[in-house]
């Protein structure tokens, strides 16, 4: 009898301590799935995808320049590869940026071989802002739930993403995910000092067929500079195509081809 009492007591005590852990674990799992889906809608977690990206840089409500790039990306066995080829204007044409996980190379006419670069170097110049399209948050960031709040009239999970390594361009991201559709709606990008660097708002108006069903895929990203709030960059994605690439597509030795 004493043994039975002890047994029930132990179960109660164990359950008391375990139940929040189970809840936390399942919440983390649930949010992880949401984050994975949000990554997918922005081009991550697919074996191969290609799109055209039209970038508009706006200062004081005037378009100061536009850039066209073609993005090819794949995520296989947890390894990310992306090739960004600059198409226009002519001064950037034939420039390429290759990412293989955290390895990066840059090439342009006149260079005799692609040069290895760091992610901060990638952020300067013509490739600036392209990084917010990066869609591997589930792999690259630890996440916790900050709150649940409405955004644009719909319930959203607000996640706090913290970089897993020092190699990430942004140390912390505050990320709003639509609770119903799993689309990432807004992201605030913070530096190591905790300073807000830029804010991105995402739209999903591209309807793309994926594995037999139509999905609402990323179409617009509006990036606002925190220092000059009048300065914006608008990224427009079009001609989205899911495809498998030859392995040579993501070879640094083929960048000058």
């Amino acid at each position: 009898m004493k043994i039975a009492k002890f047994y029930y007591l132990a179960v109660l005590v164990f359950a008391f301590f375990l139940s929040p852990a189970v809840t936390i674990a399942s919440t983390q799992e649930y949010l992880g799935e949401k984050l994975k889906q949000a990554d997918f809608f922005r081009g991550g977690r697919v074996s191969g995808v290609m799109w055209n990206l039209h970038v508009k840089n706006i200062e004081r409500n005037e378009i100061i320049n536009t850039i066209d790039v073609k993005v090819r990306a794949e995520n296989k066995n947890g390894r990310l590869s992306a090739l960004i080829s600059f198409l226009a204007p002519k001064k950037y044409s034939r420039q390429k940026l290759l990412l293989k996980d955290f390895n990066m190379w840059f090439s342009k006419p006149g260079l005799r071989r692609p040069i290895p670069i760091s992610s901060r170097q990638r952020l300067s110049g013509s490739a600036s802002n392209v990084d917010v399209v990066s869609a591997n948050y589930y792999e690259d960031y630890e996440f916790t739930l900050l709150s649940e709040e409405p955004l644009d009239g719909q319930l959203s999970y607000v996640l706090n993403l913290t970089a897993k390594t020092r190699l990430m361009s942004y140390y912390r991201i505050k990320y709003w995910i639509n609770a119903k559709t799993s689309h990432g709606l807004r992201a605030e990008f913070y530096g190591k000092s905790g300073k807000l660097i830029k804010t991105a708002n995402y739209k999903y108006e591209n309807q793309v067929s994926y594995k037999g069903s139509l999905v609402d895929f990323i179409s617009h990203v509006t990036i606002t500079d925190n220092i000059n709030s009048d300065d914006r960059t608008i990224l427009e994605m079009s001609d989205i195509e899911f495809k498998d690439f030859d392995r040579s597509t993501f070879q640094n030795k083929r960048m000058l081809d």
Partner: protein
Amino acid sequence: MYGWVILLIIMGQVGSSFAQEIKENITSSMDVMVFTRTINFYDTTGTVNPDNRIAQLQNDSGGLYFRPDIRYQSRGLSIWFKPRLNIDVNLDAFSSNEHMNNPVSTEKYEHEFSTQELKAKFQLGGEAYVLAGRYIKELGPSIIYNPSNPFVIETGQLNPKLEIRPMDFVELNVTINQEWEATLIANVGRADNAIYREPFFKFYRTYGFMLEYYGVYDSYSLLVSTNRKQQHHLALFGQRNISDSFLVWSDIVLDRGINRYYAQKIPGIDDALSQYDVINGPENYRSFPTALVGSSYTFEVGPTVTLEYFYTGRGFDDDEAKTLFDAIDFSSQKNAGTDKLLSNRNLARAINIGQPYLRKNYLFTQFGENDLYGILNYTLRYIHSFDDNSGQYSGILEWHASDSLEVFLVGIYNEGARRSDFGRLIDYQMMFGLIKRI
């Protein structure tokens, strides 16, 4: 009769659809570069280029270079064709300035057609391809010096506006998985490389195997190569991202048997009659280690600073350098009779010794930024030879005056004694030009 007509119609349609497909898969562009260049060089007796009779440089020159880039890509086949038409203008020939350094040519214009690239890639499924043709094979992570490359001697980036000569290659590349790639490389022809013509090196086909590893934060490559002249080459190079702004790389090489000209004294009846010979001889059949380490850091405000140090066993020590410069002194004074041919050959080889740098220990620094204000690229460089305390400053400025027009300025200034790596031939050079992208 009708049969022939139908056959002709079918052939016409097939031909037309074939032509249509070709047309749809061809893209082309062209850069037109016009430039003027000023070089101040040393040409007195005792230098490597006495009376400018060896390098035959021009003080002032210009050029109009047409650089088309045509590519065809369809299914598993890609073809690249980059013909070149270079029209060079010898501005010295227009001038009667007596202060010009010994103009050697009175030809005002020269032109050259060449093929900078003609190659085809055949995709063998998604994981492998064969690449063959004439092109530049580049390897290694360094900006300034790539000792790991056994195929191309001139790999420096001194003046990116001037193209280096391609060679003929065949490659088979296989991607084993997400992390590993293997490549068989055969350098089968010298193409138009002057360094493999008389009085320089004899060309031997070189065969290599390269294994590459791509990690999450780093990448490494191992390359082995050999040729019929028993020149063996082992290279290991790689790079690693330390943080979002800090990158390191290294390039470590062991050569057994190299192409390099060094000087030796041919004993005469007495010392005054001794002659020098600059040869690619038995001294080159031993082991030569080379090690390069480099790093770059990108500041938050934009510029990137790069630092590289390299030691090359192929470089000359003090005694070898002294013998070479004694040979230059001696040969520069022999410009007549039977000595002239040997002297000229020695001096030509002393200019093109078969490696980009003469001595053993070098430090390279670079400071630069791309796309400043959306219109400006600038690069400032300095390389220093610790062995003879000579150095070279260089700068490249590129201004995008419009979307399709680039204005550039390249400047190089050498400092050092006449018997030093950077002080032996050129004092300074400036190149100013425009590139119109069509």
